[in-house]
């Protein structure tokens, strides 16, 4: 038996938001009587962190501490329209809608503060810790809570805002495919190190080194969650998963987690990540949305690493031991490529 080492590379870009646009999302922001804010969305948190990302974006825009913001999602009676949580659109589309809504609410809060402090609202700034100062005169300040209270109980104004973000729908030319598919792209490149057992065809991913460009990491730990989990899923797509193992034949489709395989906690590879941030001009604080693109580069990188290790090019996912073994037999054994 020989275990061969191999190394593969892949690089990808990924379109952010629903293709062609036409996918608005809306947000409503309002303050309670004491300056604690609620954000109403109809966007879905299916684990990607929608509530948390929009909460930070809202707090940054309002100029209040993140603890003063709570995001409520997905009650169609109270939440405004949202297209949905898919197509890497959450951070970009919903985040932008939240900014629009939060800016409107912030302006009302600052107007109330200006009236209380008897200054021009343009001269006010927030410190992000719950205070509104006169620029250049930090002693003259009012808390965001007091400002919101004043707005509602003395000035008769709602500290509230409405936001929508829409990239208008693009046409598609039938003859050339001319279109405006998206407004920005995320990027990634990845090196996978594998070993291949040339008697069994088994592939083990030993190490992953990656670079992901995400625009702006609104929350670095949430980005990390996506990248680590997404690379795991990509590895799973590369080596394990399919609902139709005899595609296009429909037989032996798995109906449980014994037969539908995914890497277990004993199969995970060490993954060292670099995060790059080139802000998207139209993203919320430059943010793009790493949730989908992070799963993609590892699939071809593993396929390329297997080729480098034993000279077998598996062109149909998943790269099962059987496919590798058949390739080895067709080639008359392993044909290791250059060491990299």
């Amino acid at each position, binding site marked *: 038996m020989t275990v061969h080492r191999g190394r593969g590379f892949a690089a990808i870009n990924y379109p952010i938001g629903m293709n062609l646009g036409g996918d608005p999302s809306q947000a409503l922001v309002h303050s309670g009587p004491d300056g604690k804010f609620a954000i109403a969305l109809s966007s879905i948190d*299916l*684990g990607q962190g929608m509530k948390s990302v929009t909460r930070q974006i809202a707090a940054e825009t309002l100029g209040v501490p993140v603890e003063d913001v709570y995001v409520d999602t997905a009650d169609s009676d109270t939440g405004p329209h949202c297209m949905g949580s898919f197509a890497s659109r959450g951070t970009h589309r919903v985040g932008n809608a939240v900014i629009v809504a939060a800016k409107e609410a912030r302006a009302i809060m600052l107007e109330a503060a200006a009236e209380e402090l008897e200054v021009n609202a343009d001269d006010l700034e927030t410190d992000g810790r719950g205070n509104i100062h006169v620029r250049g005169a930090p002693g003259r300040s009012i808390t965001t809570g007091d400002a919101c209270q004043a707005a509602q109980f003395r000035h008769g104004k709602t500290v509230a805002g409405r936001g929508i973000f829409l990239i208008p729908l693009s046409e598609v030319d039938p003859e050339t495919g001319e279109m405006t598919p998206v407004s920005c792209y995320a990027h990634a490149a990845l090196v996978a190190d594998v070993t291949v057992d040339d008697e069994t065809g088994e592939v083990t991913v030993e190490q992953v080194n990656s670079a992901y460009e995400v625009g702006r990491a609104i929350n670095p730990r949430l980005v990390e969650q996506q990248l*680590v*989990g997404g690379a*795991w899923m990509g590895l799973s797509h590369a080596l394990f998963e399919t609902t139709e193992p005899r595609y296009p034949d429909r037989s032996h489709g798995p109906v*449980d*987690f014994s037969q539908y395989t995914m890497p*277990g*906690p004993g199969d995970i590879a060490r993954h060292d990540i670099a995060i790059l941030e080139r802000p998207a001009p139209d993203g919320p604080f430059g943010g793009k949305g790493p949730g989908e693109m992070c799963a993609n580069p590892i699939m071809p990188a593993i396929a390329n690493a297997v080729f480098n290790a034993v000279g077998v090019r598996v062109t149909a996912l998943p790269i099962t031991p059987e496919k590798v073994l058949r390739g080895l037999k067709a080639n008359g054994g392993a044909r290791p490529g250059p060491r990299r």
Partner: protein
Amino acid sequence: MARKPLQFRLNGAEKAVFVEDGANLLDVLRRGVGDLTAKRGCAQGGCGACTVLIDGVPGLSCLTLAETVEGRSVATAGGLPGDGSHPLQEAFMAHFAAQCGFCTPGMLMAATALLESTPHPDRNQVVHALSGNICRCTGYEPIIAAVLDVAGEGGGGRS
């Protein structure tokens, strides 16, 4: 359909319910006594989202015939502190070890069982302890790191 009386302790409290013949413990917990913390991911024994402790031993509540817990003690994530102050809860929060949160109660119970029998497990023991619990979001690494953190074995090599 026959219904049978069933008494057991749930997170220290006595429970008495009538259960349908052939009912599994998961349905009895969720619909019979209103403990919704055990999750139904497959009802096949394959995902671990419904993991509970039965007399301190981890069990898949979906594969447990409810009547077999007569007179026994069942522990669920519902018995963990509501303020997240259990060391495992704290570690899961600090390590961002949950995304959608659906597998989390089962993971917590599997990890609880491990740490009660093996207070200082190594990584391999943690991997084995979690091997019946599927997480589709995190790639397991943050969960393993969280459990190792509680075990005092460091956080899994974060830089």
